[in-house]
C-alpha cells in the first residue's frame, strides 16, 4: 500500500510541477497579450500611464468612445476601460482597482449607463480573461463571485492550465514567444466597430430578463452600488459623469423599463451633485450610417460622438 502511495505522490508531484510551470508561462504570455480585453485589464493592473479621464461601462463605453479623439479635443489623458457586458459591480471593481494604484486619482470618471447594466442575472463576459490576474485581490474578489473556477485556480494553481482552452493557450504561447508580433485592435481600450455591419434585420433584443427591472427589489443592490461609486468619487474629489449614450432613433430596450431607471438615476444625480448627460436621442441618433447596430456606434459614429462628448465635458 505504501509503495502505491509513494508511486502516486511521485507521479502527481512531477506532473503538477510541470503543469504549474506551464500555467505561469501562459499567464506571462496572456498578460502581455493585445487580443480581446487583455490590454485593458493589463492597463488596469499595471497602470502604465497617469490617466486623467476614465471611461467606464459596458460595450457602450468600449465601442462608443475613442480616447484618442477625446484627448485631442480636451488635451488630457484618457483611457477607455469599457468591458463587454459589464454591469455596475464591474464598473465599481474597475474604479476601486484603479484607485488602488500608485497614481494620483483621475480627475474625471465617465460612466456609460443604460438600463441593461443593472441586470445582475447575466454572468461576466469571458471571465477567463481575468484568470492570469488571479493574484490581484480586488480582481479575484470580484470574479470569484460570478465564476467559482477562479477559486479552484487559486487553491490548485498547478491545475490552472486545465481552465484554459486552446485559444488562450495559443494567446499565452504567442504572447511569450512572439511579443513583437502582437498587435491590438484596441485604441487605448476603445474597440472600433466595422462601419458596414449594420443588418437590416437588426432588432432590439427581445425577451431579455423581462422581469428584472420591473421588480424594484431586484434593482436595489445595483442602485446601491451606483451610490457607493458616487460616495467613493466624492471622497477622492473625482468629478463623476453619468452618460446615457446614443441609441439609434432613441430606442431603448423596453424590457428594462427605462423610465424607472432614469427616475432612479435622477434621484442619485440630485443627491450627489453629479452631471447626467442624456445623449440617447441627440441628432446623430437619426443617422443610420453612424451606427453598427441599435446600441453601438461604428468607428465613424464613435469619433463624432466622442467629439460631442468631449465638448460637453470641457
Amino acid at each position, binding site marked *: *500500500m505504501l*509503495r*502505491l502511495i509513494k*508511486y*502516486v505522490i*511521485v*507521479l*502527481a508531484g*512531477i*506532473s*503538477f510541477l*510541470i*503543469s504549474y510551470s*506551464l500555467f505561469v508561462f501562459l499567464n506571462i504570455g496572456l498578460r502581455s497579450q493585445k487580443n480581446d480585453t487583455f490590454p485593458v485589464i493589463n492597463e488596469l493592473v499595471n497602470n502604465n500611464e497617469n490617466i486623467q479621464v476614465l471611461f467606464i461601462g459596458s460595450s457602450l463605453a468600449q465601442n462608443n468612445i475613442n480616447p484618442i479623439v477625446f484627448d485631442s479635443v480636451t488635451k488630457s489623458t484618457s483611457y477607455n476601460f469599457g468591458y463587454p457586458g459589464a454591469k455596475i459591480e464591474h464598473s465599481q471593481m474597475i474604479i476601486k482597482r484603479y484607485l488602488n494604484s500608485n497614481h494620483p486619482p483621475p480627475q474625471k470618471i465617465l460612466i456609460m449607463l443604460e438600463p441593461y447594466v443593472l441586470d445582475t442575472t447575466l454572468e461576466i463576459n469571458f471571465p477567463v480573461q481575468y484568470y492570469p490576474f488571479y493574484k490581484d485581490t480586488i480582481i479575484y474578489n470580484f470574479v470569484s463571485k460570478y465564476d467559482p473556477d477562479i477559486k479552484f485556480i487559486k487553491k490548485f494553481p*498547478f*491545475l490552472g*492550465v*486545465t*481552465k484554459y*482552452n*486552446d*485559444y488562450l*493557450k*495559443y494567446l499565452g*504561447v504567442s504572447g511569450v514567444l512572439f511579443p513583437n508580433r502582437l498587435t491590438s485592435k484596441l485604441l487605448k481600450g476603445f474597440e472600433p466597430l466595422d462601419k458596414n455591419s449594420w443588418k437590416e434585420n437588426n432588432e432590439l433584443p427581445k425577451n431579455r430578463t423581462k422581469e428584472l427591472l420591473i421588480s424594484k427589489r431586484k434593482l436595489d443592490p445595483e442602485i446601491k452600488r451606483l451610490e457607493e461609486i458616487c460616495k467613493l468619487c466624492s471622497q477622492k474629489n473625482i468629478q463623476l459623469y453619468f452618460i446615457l449614450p446614443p441609441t439609434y432613433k432613441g430606442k431603448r430596450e423596453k424590457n428594462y423599463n427605462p423610465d424607472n431607471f432614469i427616475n432612479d438615476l435622477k434621484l442619485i444625480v440630485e443627491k450627489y451633485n453629479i452631471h447626467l448627460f442624456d445623449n440617447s436621442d441627440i441628432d446623430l441618433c437619426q443617422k443610420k450610417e453612424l451606427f453598427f447596430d441599435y446600441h453601438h456606434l461604428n468607428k465613424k459614429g464613435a469619433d463624432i460622438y466622442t467629439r460631442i462628448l468631449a465638448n460637453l465635458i470641457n
Partner: protein
Amino acid sequence: MLFNSYSFILFFLCVVLLFFSLPSRFRNILLLAASYYFYMQWKPEYGLLLAFSTIISYYTAILISKKKFEERKKYIVACIFINLSILFFFKYFNFFNDNFRSVFSYFQLSYPIPNILKIILPVGISFYTFETISYLLDIYYERREPEKKIITYAVYISFFPKLLAGPIEKSTNLLVQLNTVPEFNYERIVEGLRRMLWGFFKKIVIADRLSLMIDPVYSLPSNYSGVYTLITCYLFAFQIYCDFSGYTDIAIGASKILGYDIVENFNFPFISKNVGEFWRRWHLSLSNWLKDYLFTPIIFKRKGWKNYALVYATFITFLLCGLWHGAKWTFVTFGLLQGIVISYELMTKSIRKKWASEISTKLYNNISLVLTFHFIVFSFIFFRADNMHNAFEIINRLIHFNFNSHILSEFNKFGMFSLGIVFLTISFMHFVERKYQPSLVGFNNNIKINYIFNCITLTLLIILGYFHPQIFIYFNF
C-alpha cells in the same frame, strides 16, 4: 456520473478503498451497491429496469437449466422476448412508429398510434440486454451452469466499469471471475491506473478536442467548404476511436484495479486491409457477440444456401449491427454499407487472391489498407450525421470539393494551433499503441519507462486536456 468527471474519480477511489478493506464475502455486495448507485445517477427509475432485466433472466436461467432441452425453448424465447421488448420500447418504438405513419400517410390512410413523448433512452440498455441474452443462450446450449448467487449474477450484469458502454462481457469470462477473491496487488493496480490514465488522455485530450472541430460541421454542413468538411470526416474516425477506445481503456483499467480482467475491444482497427478485418479489430465484443449469437446460427440454419448463406447472414448481421447503434436511418445505412462491402469481399475472395499474387503482395496490401480506411471514413459520415439530409449534404460538399476564401477563416491561426495539438497527440497515441500494444502490456516489465510514460501522459492530460466533460459517444447506444 461521467468517467471524465471529478465525481467519478472520488466515487471510484471510495469503492476501491472499501473493496480492499471489506472481507471477501461482502465485496460483491459492495460492487452491486456501487454499480446501482453509479447507474442511478443518470435516472434513478432506470435502475429498476436494470434490476427487472437481471431478476427475470436470473430465474429463467435457473428454470431452463432444470428442464429438458426440448422444453427449454419456450422459456428462453419468452425471456429474450421480454428483454428485447424493453429495448424495443425505449430505443426503437418512436422510430418504427414514425416510419409506419409515413407509409400510411403516403397511401393516405389514417394511422392511430401516437408517438410516446420524451422517451429517454436508458444508458447502457443495448449493452446489458445483449449480455443478458448471451448468458441465457449459454445456459440454453449448456455452455455453462447457471449462476447460483443472484448477487454475483447482478454484479455481472451491472458491473459499473462496463455498464454504460461495454465491453459486452460474456458470462464465461467476468461471471467466472466474480466468484473468485481478488487480492490487493501493487503491479496490477499500477497497470490499471496506467490504462485508466491512457483512456482519459484519449478521451479528454484527443476526442473532446476533436469534437469542437467536428460537431459544428455536422450540425450545419452547408456552412463549411469541401476541404474543411473532408478534413473533419477524416478526423471523426480518430475522434470516435479515441472516444470509444478511451472509454474502454478506463473500463478495463478500473476493472483491473478491482482485480478483474474484462475483454479488449480494439486491436488497431485502422490498419485493417479489408472491412471484414476491420470488424475483427473494432468493437470486438460486439462483433464477437454478433458472430456467436447471430451470424453463425444463421449460417448454420441456411447451410444449404452455400455461399448465399454467407451473404444473407452478413446482411442481416450488419443491418442489426447498424440498428443496434441507434434508431435512425443513418445507422441503418451505416450497417448496410458494411454489409454490402463485406459481402463483396466474401464473394470475390478468390479473385482478389489472384490479383494479389499477380502484383506485389506488399503493394496490394497497402492499396487495400488505404481503400479500407477510406471506406470506413466514408461510412462514418452516416454514423455521425444527425440525419440523412445532413449526411448527403456532407457528401455533396465532398463531391463539390471547393477551396474558397472561407477556408482561410476556417483555418485561422488558432484553429491551426488546435489542429497542431491534435496531430501531435494522435501521433503520440499511435506511437505508444504500436510500440506497447493497445493494452499497454509492453510497459509491464520496465519500471523506469512505466514511470516516465505515466508522467508524460498525466502532464499532457493536464496541459492539453479539454476539461468540459462531454458525454462518451457510445453512451447514446
